[in-house]
């Protein structure tokens, strides 16, 4: 009988702890599939963040470290410099990557560190119960912006892909989403390409995945996806922001 659905070998059998409808699970699968398809799971070393994905070390079927909040790119740098033949990736949320870990992110990118960052932008701090993130949209209500994010007080969201694309270091930056089958396919291709580039020694790659947090957004999963399309995608346009492998760079959203 033909097998039509299989769990990637890059994932362990541990049941995921994510909330129902959370997109973390989809992205885990895409990362594992990319590693499997490139045949690099056995030399992969992942770094889990502090955030909802902290337990990623239980899910990816490869060597894993768990970093301090925001420091995953630095830890990944140490791992990669120690054993450059390993494929090293981090998996980070927006609070982890774009608030407390901004310096580590920007400088890993500026160095062109030959690592891959999977960046989950869900516009909120998930693990701690829904506080404002650096990516929280203007007017968005969170536990710590209860009247909506007031940009005169809390400032504006950070567009990470655009920000990093101003640097010369990165080899590949793409913003994707996993809100539809079509976009999941694009995300899969982008993640695969990022790891491919790392294997070829091309340098730093970051895939920003516009994601949902139904629990802390206070929505059911379907409504959360609709909210993502209506509010997040206009602010965070999908597309390639850097591709050193292509003839020319620039966004092709």
């Amino acid at each position, binding site marked *: 009988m033909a097998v039509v659905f299989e769990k990637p070998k890059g994932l*362990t059998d541990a049941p995921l702890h994510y909330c129902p409808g959370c997109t973390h699970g989809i992205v885990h699968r895409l990362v594992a599939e990319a590693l499997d398809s490139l045949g690099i*799971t*056995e*030399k*992969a*070393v992942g*770094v*889990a963040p502090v955030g909802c994905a*902290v337990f990623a*070390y*239980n899910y*990816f*079927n*490869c*060597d*894993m*470290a*768990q*970093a*301090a909040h925001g*420091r995953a790119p*630095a*830890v*990944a*740098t*140490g*791992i*990669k*410099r*120690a*054993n450059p*033949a*390993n*494929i090293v990736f981090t998996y980070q949320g927006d609070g982890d990557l774009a608030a407390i870990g901004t*310096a*580590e992110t*920007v*400088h890993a990118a500026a160095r062109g560190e030959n690592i891959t960052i999977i960046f989950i932008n869900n516009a909120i701090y998930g693990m701690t119960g829904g506080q404002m993130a650096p990516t929280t949209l203007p007017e968005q209500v969170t536990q710590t912006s209860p009247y909506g994010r007031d940009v005169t007080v809390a400032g504006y969201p950070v567009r990470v892909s655009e920000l990093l694309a101003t640097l010369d270091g990165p080899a590949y930056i793409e913003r994707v989403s996993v809100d539809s089958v079509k976009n999941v396919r694009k995300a899969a291709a982008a993640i695969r390409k990022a790891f491919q580039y790392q294997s070829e020694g091309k340098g730093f790659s970051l895939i920003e995945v516009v994601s949902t947090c139904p629990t802390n957004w206070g929505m059911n999963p379907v409504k959360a996806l609709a909210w993502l399309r209506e509010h997040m995608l206009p602010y965070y346009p999908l597309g390639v922001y850097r591709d050193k492998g292509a003839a020319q760079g620039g966004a092709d959203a």
Partner: protein
Amino acid sequence: MAEKVLMKGNEAIAEAAVAAGCRHYFGYPITPQTEIAAYMAKRMPKIGGTFLQAESEVAAINMVAGAAAAGVRTMTSSSSPGVALKSEGISYIAGMDIPALVVNIMRAGPGLGGIQPSQGDYWQCVKGGGHGDYRNIVLAPSGVQEMYDFTKLAFDLADKYRMCAMILSDGVLGQMMEPVAVSASDAPPFCADGKPWALTGTKGARKPNIINSLYIEPDTLEVLLDKRYAEKYAACEANEVRWDEFLTDDAEIVVTAYGAPARIARSAVTAARAKGIKAGLLRPITLWPFPKVPLAQLAETAKAFVCVELSKGQMIDDIRLAIECKRPVSLCTRTGGNVPSPEEILTAIENAAKEAV
């Protein structure tokens, strides 16, 4: 026979690290330890190593954590404000049970303080500095040869116990030049072969390794901490206590000092002897594990202790605890980047002798 080379203390540390097989250095500039980074920047590219100037001390220590997790010998160095920033990473290194070397060439604080020598980070480094229950092995050299020897020793101890070892030194020793007996040849680069726990990729030959410090279940974490204290830290306390004694056999006044001030204290002790005062010196070499037993033994016969340190009194607490407050302990200190003269220490010894009769 070992060759002797004239070196600065900071250079001795860097050269010893290379000789110990360290090929991964991560740091951020700060006076008075920048010679270590400068030396590594020159040396590492020539021997296939990594020198990386990080964006901050926070990043540097986490790079060290990554490289340590990947199984190589790795280090960072800094001075007081920078070590404060490294505290987060040092706590994680303890929680992850990985070996690393952190060098602190102390300067005066608090805040930006000054760039002259100090020992104001005793508490920060010896008591942990970062969050949670943990220990670091802390070695305090008091000469350039010891800067060299203890750096190698620190790597060995870090690997043996899978924990963070620190060299706690000061600007005097960092800048001081002395002849050093160096190892004839460099050790081969130290790699992950003897470290089956290291993150090197499974190569399809084993289950994934996980290096982590998170344990959500209270009982799991408690058991782990109990084990770490009962096995690793207790073994350090049993096997790794190091100290040096000078004229303590019949000493009535025991001076305690570590690092550069111990050299001045030694002169003061000799001067006190010349004046007929039975003074001696106990110099802790490991600040953790602390030489509690020899201090307690000296407390049986000595009349008083004088603690010399470049701080407002930090190690003095450990002296008092070690001797269970059985004898008076006075503090002889200069701060702000100043160092006591032999005469100042001699006066402190004389005062202690007077009060002790």
